[in-house]
């Protein structure tokens, strides 16, 4: 309870949480408010915003409702962002725990692999992966996770290195638990909090990477994505700038919201730690 109160004490955190909440509401409400295909042609092409109240944000080059696309785009952005971050955290935590707990040769090998992934720019990795496998939602999630798991892996390993020397780990060994069991049931849960603190950064980066991939035409073409909307609006940037500006603003707000809320969580836990 205290923690929650502390979280809501910082104005940044409140702003972040508010943005995130409205974003999630948007994503959840999209199929209710705009049932059917958001890419259906709804009116005349290139209708400017605030001219027709049935199409409040106007229409794009084919006459699709920009507001409907924006709502459904929120679904894709959030889904990809969360899924990619979850996958990255999962892989990172497992690799980090194994490396830290096993030590020796396994540690060396896993960490060199991590190094290898870290030296390749994660966006290039995603770009190459999607262009080889072909764009679809699952592939995009995998591509982003592929470049994002190294951070969590390093943090998890560092945390595991200190935890594995604790008494309760030695105790678990004495009562005859299998090493893997100790690693994942005793060590990993305790190493997790600092790893999870990375999640907001990863989610924000994943949303941006997804948008960039879609912008380059490597997103799932059968779904609305904000990056794709910006790319499509780019050809008419001078005549209908709102087509790029609207999803662009949505993207900025989302990333900002995720980041601020994440910061808020970290702040409130940090305060608690220093108090205790």
């Amino acid at each position, binding site marked *: 309870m205290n923690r929650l109160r502390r979280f809501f004490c910082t104005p940044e955190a409140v702003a972040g949480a508010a943005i995130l909440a409205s974003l999630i509401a948007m994503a959840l409400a999209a199929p209710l408010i705009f049932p059917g295909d958001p*890419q259906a042609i709804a009116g005349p092409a290139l209708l400017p915003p605030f001219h027709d109240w049935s199409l409040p944000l106007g229409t794009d*080059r*084919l006459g699709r409702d920009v507001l409907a696309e924006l709502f459904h785009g929120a679904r894709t952005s959030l889904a990809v962002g969360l899924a990619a971050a979850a996958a990255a955290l999962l892989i990172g935590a497992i690799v980090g725990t194994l490396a830290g707990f096993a030590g020796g040769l396994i540690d060396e090998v896993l960490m060199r692999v991590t190094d290898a992934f870290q030296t390749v720019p994660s966006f290039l990795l995603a770009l190459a992966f999607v262009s080889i496998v072909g764009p679809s939602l699952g592939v995009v999630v995998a591509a982003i996770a592929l470049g994002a798991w190294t951070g969590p892996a390093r943090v998890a390993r560092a945390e595991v290195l200190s935890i594995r020397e604790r008494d309760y780990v030695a105790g678990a060994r004495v009562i005859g638990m299998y090493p893997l069991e100790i690693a994942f049931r005793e060590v990993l849960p305790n190493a997790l909090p600092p790893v999870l603190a990375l999640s907001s950064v990863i989610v924000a980066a994943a949303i941006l990477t997804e948008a960039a991939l879609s912008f380059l035409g490597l997103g799932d073409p059968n779904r609305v994505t904000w990056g794709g909307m910006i790319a499509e609006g780019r050809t008419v940037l001078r*005549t209908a700038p709102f087509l790029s500006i609207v999803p662009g603003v949505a993207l900025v707000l989302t990333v900002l919201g995720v980041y601020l809320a994440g910061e808020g969580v970290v702040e409130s836990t940090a305060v608690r730690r220093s108090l205790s």
Partner: protein
Amino acid sequence: MSELTISRRGLLAGSALLLASTALPTIGFAQTPKKGGRLIVAADSEPRNLNPAIVASNGVFFISSKVVETLAEASFDGKDGLEPRLALSWEGAADGLSVTFKLRDGVKWHDGKPFTSADVAFSALQVWKPLQNLGRTVFNDLTAVDTPNELTAIFKFAKPTPFQLIRNALPALSSVVPKHVYEVGKIEENPANNAPVGTGPFKFAEYKAGQYYRLTKNDAYWGKDEPYLDEIIYQVLPDRTSAAAALEAEEIQLAAFSAVPLADLERISKVPGLKVITKGYEGLTYQLVVEINHRRKELADLKVRQAIAHAIDKDFVVKTIFLGYAATATGPVPKNDPQFYTADVPTYPFDVAKANALLDEAGYKRADDGKRFALKLLPAPYFNETKQFGDYLRQALAAIGIDAEIVNNDSAAHIKAVYTDHAFDLAVGPPVFRGDPAISTTILVQSGIPDGVPFSNQGGYRNADLDALIAKASETLDTAARTELYKEFQKKVAADLPLINVAEWSFISVARDTVGNIADNPRWAVSNWADTYLAG
């Protein structure tokens, strides 16, 4: 801080300048071509092989047609729509077995050697027939080129070949390359393919990858007083939105091939000093076509194909996707073709109810989720418009219960997927009509084409009637009878729908109004620009 002072002299000078600037446009419209100047043009692709005799495509012609000339060029008012270039006259024999070209005298290659009939014979037999993408079909029956003297070339054919076809093929297929440059070594690997040597008004000077191509004036050009320009620079601007900005900033003076997006034209036409030109592409009509894979059992059913044709609102496509810069299509020959087009074909007006009824009749009832069956749709990535039409088609098909999944590929992957692997159900393609159905149109429906030939019938369509008709037309010598056969061809294609023709479009140029003699022939952007000039 300096003070802003207004002196009488400064004011006078300023207003004089203003006056002068209003007078400038009138100077620009003066019709006497001026000599000299450097024309800077936007280029959106960088072809590696610049030999138009091997790669007969508009991307290559755009640059190399100024360097390497053809026997004849398309013309608005010349006889049979042609005007002489390297050939002065052409005559077909009554039996269709030979065509005689009389060549221009006193023409020199850029390296100073004289141009002769031996060069024409070499180009035709060693390059156009075996190596050229389009020449392979048209010159398939060419067996020999006789050169009784230096200025006469007689093409000999094994089978009667319609003179009309050869004539229509001249502007795009007859780029003449120098024999003395190409006779040593493999033609495909000759360095002149990247730095062409020709007889044209401009010489190839240099190419900087990712930056520009530079052509310089050929002082020994055969045309009187031509060329007017000293230099042409092709500035590489791969980003379509940057061409408009570069024009406005006066960094370039011409953007051809719709380098300025259609949606920007209305705005840019109001910018002082710029003009939007829709002429000069009449001989380069692109067709927006839905390619169909007839191996899918649903699509092998004529009723399904008819339903798809009825589901497409062609007027919407022309108005919204092409913003009016296109025409609706009725069949495989575009409406603007003066020789072959017929409107007397079955048509498919936009009618969703009828399309749904046809699909019900064909036995593909809607399932509980409203869908009849699912398809893979591959829009060609070459143009914004083909991609947008892909998005539109997906919606149009959704309205009749067909669930189309769009698959995006880059150019190379698209060509492989559609024309080699046949990994598509529907594809959106932009084939080009080149003045005669036999050059690049009949190949879209003809059967028996090997896998991997791009822009051909790779949908597994087989119609013995149509094949026989195409074969008959290819050996009919009489122009009227041949034209009649191609009218029949259009009717049959429109009736059986091996593919669905949706719209026909061409390109738009935007230029500064100082550029003169623009669009004075139907293939202007890919012609030699000998008479183009810069005023002011």
